[in-house]
């Protein structure tokens, strides 16, 4: 049995659902799924991970007293070595973007981020390049293989198993020259864009910062994330972290609503893999209208309040 390491992430005390898609993609008869959980109590997570075929949970406990990417990456490498893991899969999430390259650098191992297809036996993956304009097939060689998956590319399927939980204490080397002073959260990042199933993004048509409230009002009913085009960010209406596109976040939701967004090449680079795209724009000739699944030629200031009302009355 080849052990496959899964770097598990949590949000609000729960395992991020995209991890289960990751486990589903990694599962095969000749493989053992090993969940690596860093500085989070793994007992709660055990049952959820078992449901998706994980048979070993490595509960890594570092002495870092909270988030520390340098220490956490070193601990993951040590846990991989201890458990004979040469293949590690994580998400191309904010945490994954910090930890996976650090792990790959330490091991001098190949790494491909944002994989949309993974063949663990052939060490061959697909990922987008040139701002989503091409799909590259990349083969990796080496003694270790690190993969960053794009969230939501594989739908989770349950495959119940029983897992053992192993504690793995880790003490960091001193004098690394890297120190965490603090982590500040302002609470605005309640839903991370890259892993959201539904995203409602606003662009130039929103006109100002206050009008983004219309998007947040709709998003609340759907547990959706709110994104933005570069124009909205450059105008200072919303923070950069909300930007979808080539120089922003690349997203892969089930539904992407582009509201008052014309649809530049650079914006498409960030959202073109969305399953269903709904565009709302007053300009019937906007690029997004020709490359979406549903379009509304209309005024967002009429449609969004109506949509909010309709969503509020949906029984679920």
């Amino acid at each position, binding site marked *: 049995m080849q052990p496959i390491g899964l770097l598990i992430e949590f949000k609000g005390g729960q395992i991020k659902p995209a991890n289960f898609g990751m486990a589903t993609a990694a599962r095969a008869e000749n493989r053992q799924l090993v969940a690596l959980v860093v500085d989070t109590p793994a007992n709660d997570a055990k049952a959820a991970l078992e449901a998706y075929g994980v048979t070993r949970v490595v509960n890594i406990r570092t002495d870092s007293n909270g988030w520390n990417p340098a220490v956490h990456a070193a601990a993951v490498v040590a846990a991989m070595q201890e458990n004979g893991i040469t293949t590690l899969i994580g998400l191309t999430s904010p945490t994954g973007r910090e930890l996976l390259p650090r792990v790959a650098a330490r091991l001098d191992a190949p790494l491909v981020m944002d994989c949309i297809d993974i063949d663990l036996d052939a060490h061959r993956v697909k990922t987008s390049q040139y701002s989503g304009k091409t799909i590259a097939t990349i083969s990796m060689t080496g003694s270790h293989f690190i993969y960053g998956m794009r969230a939501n590319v594989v739908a989770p399927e349950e495959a119940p198993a029983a897992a053992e939980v192993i504690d793995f204490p880790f003490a960091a080397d001193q004098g690394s020259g*890297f120190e965490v002073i603090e982590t500040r959260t302002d609470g605005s990042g309640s839903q991370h864009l890259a892993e959201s*199933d539904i995203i409602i993004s606003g662009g130039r048509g929103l006109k100002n910062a206050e009008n983004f409230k219309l998007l947040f009002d709709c998003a609340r009913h759907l547990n959706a994330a709110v994104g933005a085009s570069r124009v909205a960010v450059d105008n200072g209406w919303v923070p950069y972290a909300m930007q979808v596109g080539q120089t922003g976040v690349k997203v892969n939701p089930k*539904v992407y609503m582009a509201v008052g967004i014309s649809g530049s090449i650079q914006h498409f680079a960030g959202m073109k893999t969305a399953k269903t795209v709904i565009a709302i724009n007053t300009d019937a000739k906007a690029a997004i209208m020709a490359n979406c699944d549903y379009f*509304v030629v209309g005024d967002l200031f009429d449609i969004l*309040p109506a949509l909010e009302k309709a969503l509020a009355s949906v029984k679920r």
Partner: protein
Amino acid sequence: MNIYVCVKHVPDSAATITVEGDNAINEKITWLMNPYDEHALTEAARIKAAGKAVEIVAVCLGKPAAENTLRSAMAMGADRSILIETDQYHDSIITARALAAAIRKDGTPWIIFTGKESIDSEGMQTQFRLAQHLGLPVATNVIKINADSGGVTVECEREAGTIDVYRMAAPCVVGAGKGLNNPNYPTFPDIVRSRKKPVKRIDLAEQAIDRPAAGMQIRELVPAVEQRTPKALAGSAADIAAQIVDILKNEAKVI
């Protein structure tokens, strides 16, 4: 105390990319400096202007045409540059080795900047590998930096609403994020001055780089297909809202 800025020569984000052969692109398009590297240079110039750095050196691994990006870097404030010449595409495992070797040979770094990722290969990893080779601390997606002789205090945007503050001892590697600054685009006199600044060319093949046991090779490159058939939703605002709810519920099944 030198600041090194690693830059990459990449296709313009608006360029049309055509695949040639199995795994290459038609290179007869507009090429520019990777956008994140512009933030890195702007910040390096700001730190130098505050009297904290001696020299800014731009470093690039690329084909001979990458000299254009180094000229841009010098127009944006680099004092001189190093082009590690090659005639091939290289993965980040080789790139990091080449950059590390060139910097090590050139001088004593204080801060080494990179962009947080490149917009062509989108690998998101060279800065980490570079730091590992040089044995230095690294932070990425840096949106604020305070530098002193002992090191830097950086703010990194991990995700919307989450900022990590790190202290790194100098020398260190900083991956510039978009929120770091507004790039200082060069004026005409800057461009004229940059033509007189030196570009040192070194051959990748002549660098003392250990052959890595690992690698990432692009086997195939295909255009990403976009085929959506747009359908119009019409009616009153309430009608349209009802249709959208129906799509969310019955087609996308997200409600």
